[in-house]
Each structure stands twice: as C-alpha cells, then as structure tokens.
C-alpha cells in the first residue's frame, strides 16, 4: 500500500452549519419539551429533561463527527461490508418481539442499557458507503441494466424493505431516495432514471391502493379533518402551529400548539419552531439546510475521486432529503411519515447518526485531492471479487461509439 496522503482541512461551511443547527436544536428541544416534561412523571417533572439529554447527545455526536472526519477512504471502504451485514442483522433482530423495543406498534429500537439504538440509522449510512464503493469501483455498472444489478438491488431492497416493514416509511423513503440520487450522481442514464422514477411512482400508487390503511393516510393527508382526534390530530395541530406563527412568529417559548402535538420535540419540532419564530425562522432554517446541501455537493463536485464524490453526494442527500421530507410532513405537503429533522429533533440515535454523516462529509472534504486508485477499491472491496476480472477489461466497452452518445 502506498503511503497515505496527509488529510486536508475540513470544510468550514459544513462544520459551521452543523454547529449552528445543533445549537438551534438544543434550544428548540428545550422549548418544545419543557411544558410536557415539567408535568410528566417519567421525566421526574424536570423541565430540562430532554434538553439535558439532547445536549449530551450533541457533545457525543460532535466527538463522533470529529472522529469519523479523520477516517481515510481506505478505512471507510474496509468497514463497509461489516456495516452492511451488521445493519441487516440488526434490522432482522429488531423485528423479533422481545428483542426489539416497540413504541406505538413500531419495532424500531434496541434497548442497550440506558441508550436506545435505531438500526435503521446505521443502515442509512451503511447503504451510502456500500453504494459509493460499488458505483465507483464498477462504473459501467450503472450504464446498463444487467444481471450484475441483482446483488446491489437485493441488498438495498432488503434494507429498505426491512425498514419499511418496521414500519418506518420515512426512513425507507430516505434510503431509496438517497440510492436514487447516488445512482444519478454516479452517471446512470437518463432513461433508466426516468424509468425508475415512474416505476417507483407506480409501485407506491399500487401500494397505496391495495392497503386500506395507507389509503386512509392519504385521505387524512388531503383532509385532516376527516379524523380530527385520530390520524388527523397531529397534522391539524401542526397546521394550527404554522398558521398561528405567521410571518414573525409568536415569540420563543410562547407557542401553544406544542402542548397538543404529541411528537412536538421529535418529528414535529419544526412546527414549534415555525410557530414561535414564524415563517422567517422556518425559511432561515430551510436555508441553513440548503446551504449544507450546497456545501456537501460542492465537496462532491470538487472531490477528485469518484468514491469521494459519491460518498459526499450520499451523505448530503441523506441530510438534505430528511430535512425536506420532515418539513414537508409538518406542513402537510406529503402524507405523514415519521422522519426526524436532522440535528434538531430530539433523539440520540438520529442525532448521532446525522453527526456521523456530517463526519463522513468532513472526511471527504479533507480528502478532496486524493485520487483513489482502483486497486485500492479492489483490495478492500465489498463483494470479495477482487481480481477475478481484469481491471482493464471495461475500457473497451466504455469507449464504444454506441455508448458515447449518452455520455454527452
């Protein structure tokens, strides 16, 4: 192995945006939770219950981010396979009653002593790492539909399917969306992308039509007042929060709807934010996320290795997609799915995994100038094929006139 190049400086924009979002997150978690925790026995009537925990998670997350940002590509490639295996096993295990911890009928968590781990969070990052490695190693894979797609489709499908079965539609959507975006970034052909998109839409439509409860959810989305005390309850109060907030908001800590929204400090924290600091606050927050996306994609664009590029695109789209899905749910733009708002929502698993994603982004930004040789990818490959195929063999195809048409 050649000598490892020195790591560059991490991207200041990403770092700054993450820290600002973290601070906003701790403040908002306190704001959205104090009224409830101050009145709840499980929180020992402590108004600071959630804020204190969120602060600890934030510090742990910052440490994790700093640690991950020192990872070299080779190391990331090395751990990919084990991460994928671990997450699939965990996703299976979490479904077993007694092993997984259930909240409201959803098997999403493991209880590991005092902390609760959500395997889907690990699976998200594992998928990004896996796809980045896969697409950069076998570039022509994405150019043509072939039997070689079976492996990756099965793996990603398995992960997404298991998460979907938890059920955690939001995270499944994030993963599928991220995979799609990475496919796009990896240079998949437009007609494939379009085909995939239409196919996915059709599949979703079918799933909705076939399952009455999903249909119900769509109806509630279209008109939450169909079931104002059941499924529509949270979304109605979320809309109330947004409406009450108006342009300038009612003022920090003065929001009321956080008392009504059950998930006020987790998935619907944006509603509290938009009520208290108004449209201005909401748009600024969205701007902050878009800035993060911009910085992430800029890192991807500038990255000299395809691996780095895809990795950056993947983690950026995880963060960016989750944020936009979350706000879309809160504003009833799409049917309700449980997705936390990155860096803001209360919850250790989510926060730490988002910080890990940011850490990966920082790691890429520090290795922008690293040109990864294919050999390295093969040596640490994810599918164990190593040298069964000549490195050179793809070239002929890639340069064939028939394909070049699509590359322009």
């Amino acid at each position, binding site marked *: 192995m050649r000598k490892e190049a020195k790591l560059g400086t991490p991207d200041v924009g990403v770092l700054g945006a993450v820290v600002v979002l973290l601070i906003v997150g701790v403040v908002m978690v306190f704001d959205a939770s104090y009224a409830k925790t101050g009145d709840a026995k499980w929180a020992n009537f402590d108004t600071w219950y959630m804020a204190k925990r969120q602060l600890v998670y934030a510090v742990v997350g910052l440490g994790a981010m700093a640690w991950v940002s020192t990872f070299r590509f080779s190391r990331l490639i090395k751990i990919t396979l084990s991460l994928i295996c671990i997450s699939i096993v965990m996703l299976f295990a979490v479904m077993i009653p007694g092993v997984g911890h259930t909240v409201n009928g959803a098997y999403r968590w493991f209880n590991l002593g005092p902390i609760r781990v959500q395997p889907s969070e690990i699976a998200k990052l594992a998928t990004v790492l896996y796809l980045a490695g896969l697409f950069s190693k076998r570039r022509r894979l994405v150019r043509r539909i072939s039997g070689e797609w079976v492996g990756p489709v099965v793996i990603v499908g398995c992960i997404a399917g298991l998460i979907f079965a938890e059920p955690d539609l939001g995270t499944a959507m994030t993963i599928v969306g991220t995979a799609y975006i990475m496919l796009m970034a990896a240079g998949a052909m437009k007609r494939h992308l379009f085909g995939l998109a239409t196919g996915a839409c059709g599949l979703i439509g079918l799933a909705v039509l076939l399952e009455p409860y999903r249909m119900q959810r769509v109806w509630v989305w279209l008109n939450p007042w169909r079931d104002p005390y059941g499924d529509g309850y949270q979304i109605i109060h979320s809309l*109330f929060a947004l409406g009450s907030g108006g342009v300038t908001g009612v003022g920090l800590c003065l929001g009321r709807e956080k008392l009504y929204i059950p998930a006020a400090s987790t998935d619907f924290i944006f509603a509290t934010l938009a009520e208290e600091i108004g449209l201005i606050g909401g748009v600024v927050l969205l701007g902050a996320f878009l800035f993060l996306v911009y910085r992430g994609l800029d890192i991807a664009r500038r990255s000299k290795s395809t691996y780095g590029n895809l990795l950056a695109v993947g983690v950026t789209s995880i963060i960016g997609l989750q944020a936009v899905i979350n706000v879309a749910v809160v504003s009833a733009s799409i049917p309700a799915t449980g997705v936390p708002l990155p860096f803001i929502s209360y919850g250790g698993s989510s926060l730490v995994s988002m910080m890990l994603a940011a850490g990966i982004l920082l790691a890429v930004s520090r290795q922008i100038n690293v040109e990864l040789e294919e050999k390295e990818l093969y040596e640490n490959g994810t599918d164990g094929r190593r040298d069964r195929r000549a490195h050179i063999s793809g070239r002929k195809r890639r340069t064939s006139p028939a394909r070049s048409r699509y590359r322009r």
Partner: protein
Amino acid sequence: MASRQRGLVKKRTTWLFLLFSLLYVAVAGRLVYLQVIKRDYYKAKAERVRERTYPVRATRGTIYDRNGRALAVNIDTASVFANTRDIRDISKTSVRVAALLDQDTNVIEEKLNGTRHFVWLGRQLDARIGDRIWNERNKLPGVGMQRDTKRIYPAGALAAQIVGFTNYENQGAEGLERVLNSQLQGKNGKFTAELDSERRVIPETRHVLKNAEDGRDVYLTIDMTIQHITEQALAELAEKYHPRSACAVVMDPRTGEILALANYPTYDPNNARKTKSALWRNRAVADLYEPGSTLKTVTAAAALNEGISPYQVIAHCTGREKIAGGRVSCTLHHPFQNGHGGVDMLKMIQQSCNIGAAHLALRLGAKKLYSYEKAFGLLDKPHAGFGCEAVGYMDKPDQWRPIRLANIGFGQGMAVTPLQMTGVYATIANGGVRVEPQIVREIKNRDGTTFRAFKPGKATRVISKDAAMSTMRLLKSCVDVGTGKPGKIDGRTVAGKTGSAQVAKENGRGYENGTFIASFMGFAPVMSPRLVIAVVVNRPQGSHWGATVAAPVFREIGEKSLWYLKVPSDTPSNEEMRRQENERKRLADRSIKGFAG
C-alpha cells in the same frame, strides 16, 4: 476519460443541487402559503380549539336569621367525573377511584361500564377528595375533577321548610332558596383561557372578561332561638301524641314578622335528596285545613264590631240542635253534660259552644260574615314571601245554605292555612289592624349596603279598637277560666282559643270518623301583645282536644320565647301568688297570735 468522467460528475452535482433547491423552494413555498395566505384561517381555527370561555362563579348569598346567624352558607367542594372513553383499565380505575371516594367498587365499575360516556362519580364531595384525585390524575386517565361549592345548612333541620335547599347546580330547589334564587345566586362572570392538550386551563392565559357579581345576602325575620324553641316543642308533642303532622307559627303582631315557623315532621336540608319530598312541604303555609273552633274568634269579632253585646244571650244550647235543615252539636264537658244552657258570646268563646257560634253566624247573615272573613285575610293570598302560600277556600256567600252559614260560624265547611289563622289572631292582638305577615326582613348587597328592606306591610283596620279589645277579653277569659286553661303561661296574661276540628274526607263528603285537627291559637301578653302563637296538630293520637294536645305546646313556646325576649311579666306568677298567700297567712297568724298574746 478522467476528465470526461469529471465533467459528468460536475454536471450531475449541479443538477442535484438544482433538484434539491427545487424541493426546498417548493416546501418553502408551502410554508409561505400556510403562514401568510392561510394564516388567519388556521389561527382562528386554532384559537377556537384551544380557547374556552368559562364562567367566573358567583358566590351564592348567605341566608341569615334576623340576628345575623347563618342558616345557609357555602363551602368549597369538588365533583368527580369520568370520560369513560379515555379510561384504559376500567376495573383498575374503579378500584382506585372507589378507594379515593370511599364508595363501593362495584357501583363505580357499573357506572364506568354504562352506556354513557360522561358520568358523575361523585358530586359536591369534600374538597380534600378532589385534591387527592387531582394529585393522581396521571394515574387515572379519563377521571376528572371540578371544583365547585356546595350549600350547607349549619343549623341542620332548623327552619328547613322555610330555607329549602339547592340542587347540584347550586340553584334553589325548594323554599326561599328557590323563591329568592335570583337574589341569592348573583351573576356569573366570564373568563377565557387557553387549554393544554389535556383540556386543562393554562393559568397564565386566564383573561377575565367580566367579573362575577356575588349573590345578595338574605336576612329572614326568623329568630333562630325562637325557631329552635318552637321546633323543640313540636318534637316533644310528637313524642307524646304521634300526630301525622304538626306546625306552629310565631309572629310579632305589631309588624307581621314571622319569628318562627316550624313543621313536623321535618328533614335535614343537607341531605335533602335522601328524604321524602313530602317532608319538604311547608305545611304551615301551603296546606289548607278546616280551622274549627279557632274560627269562632272571627265570628265573635264580627259580631262585636257589629255592636252585639258580649253578654247578650244568643242561643240556648242543649248539646244538639237542628238548625235550618242540618244538625249542629256541641261537645260537652263537665259541668255542662246537658248542654251549655243560655249562651252569650263570652260563654261561647270560653266553652267553645258550636250552637252559640251557629246562631251568631245566622244572626250576622252570610254576606256580613263573609265580608269579615275576607277582611281578616282568609280569602286572599298572603304575600308573606314564602312563594308557596295557599289561599283559604270558601264558597261564595250567595251559595250558602243556612246550615253552611251555621257551620262556617264555628269553622267547619271552609279551609284556611295555619298562617292565615295566625294572621287573624295577630289582627286582634294588634287592636283590629291587620298587618301582612312577612318572612324576609332585608336583602343586603355583598358590600353590606341594603338592597331592599321589607318594611311592615300595609296596615288595614278590620274591626274597631273597641271590638278588638272586647274580643281580646273574651279570648283571655277562655284561657283564664274556659277550655284554654292548659295554654295559660305562668306569670303572663294570655288570650287564646282552642280548636278541635273534624277532618273532611278526601272526596269532600262528610268528615272522617275519629280524626281531628287539634289547634290552639293565642297571644301574650294581652295588654301589649308581643307574640302571636298558632299551633295546629294534624290527627294526634291518644287525644284530639286542642286543649290537651295543642295548648301545652303553645304554653311551652310562649313561656320560653317571652323569657328569651325579656318581656316583663305582667301578672303575678303562681309562685308569687303562693308567696303572697303565705305571707298573708303568716301576717294573719301573727296578728291573731299577737292579738291573742
């Protein structure tokens, strides 16, 4: 190749950024739509959901007696309810709630398993029980508590039929609580407040729109001590004669103020809902009865006012006599086993001679007697303030056959209320001037200023002063030497009349066999009457004579009340008479001895 690849990557990342920007702008656009364009719509809806208007409860006024002693006050209570749909575990909840409320678990469980979603588990309970429920509200989803106030009657059964009681909503249900409800209840104010998700008021958001106006305090003319004396006397009577019911009215004849008004049997208004509703009835005011001999006073007063001499013989009584198609008989006592003989008005009152009264009535004529009955207030609705006053019943005089006229002369064949009869005796005691009886003395605002003072009602002269004085003399002689002797109060001059009326059958034909209404009415002291006391005992057992049954009650009430009112004695008491007698004897003895010695 590398550069081409990089070109593609650059292009695609730019695309991606555009795609993300598009998504973000779309969501931001949605936010603008919701927070700017639809803002008012959602804001109004949100406020409608979380804001509620509540009444600021007005405190109900207190009811006092004439000396400011409380008869009805408020205490803080708590009512416990359940929304059965919100209860997770009915059996567990009912066990816990039953323990807190000190009720039977099965009863609670039955209520929670009922078809109604909202049930009261306990109303107007001790405020401390409410506190306990409130402290455990997290463990008891679906069970709620509401603070309210409850009316309590510190004097218990005292004056229960006068004061009445309230319902769960603190609205008057019976008695003066009902009649004066609008004065007592005050006006609830209004406040708005925001609710949290468990429908609890957020204290900081309370905003009072209108303050409550507390109810006014009511001062009755009742004197609690005299009321107690009266009720005690009735209770003692009941022990002896077990009447179906009994009532007594004590009135100040000068002002018409009712100092005491008692009914037996009675009830405790603190537990009114567990008692029979018949007990709530203010019989002294609302029930008609045939007054019997006590009405002879009216006949006599009318005759005296018409100038008939009290010493003129009006009839010859042989015990029974056919009069105008009917028969009138007297009840005869020793020494008049063969009739009262020649009867004048004095004897008629003293010995309660029916035949004498019948002849007097016939002599006066229907029209005249009727007009006097009316003037004494027997045919008009009294406006004493009870709200349940009944009106005496009597046929029109042109429909009276002579026998009816004769009967009315001694108080049969017509009906009045004890309160009305008290009014008759008060009129005579007041020198022939009738004053409307009254029960409410004053209504005061909460700040102590008088809202309305009840001045003595309008005074109307019914009979001349001389006639009234003559009637008084007749009544006094009845107590001194006649049938009313048991009503004599030691050391007081007393005027009074007994009555032992037959009870009309319910179908209105004839009289019940062997049942009587025993009564005694009178006043003391005779020369300046302070108290008019009427005692009416319905169907006593053992004896039916007004003199035996009712007169001792009269004496009991009169003796104690006059002592309580510090009315000076106006005639030598028995003890004093004995002392004087002894003294006289001693002096006589000494003088004899001295003379002898």
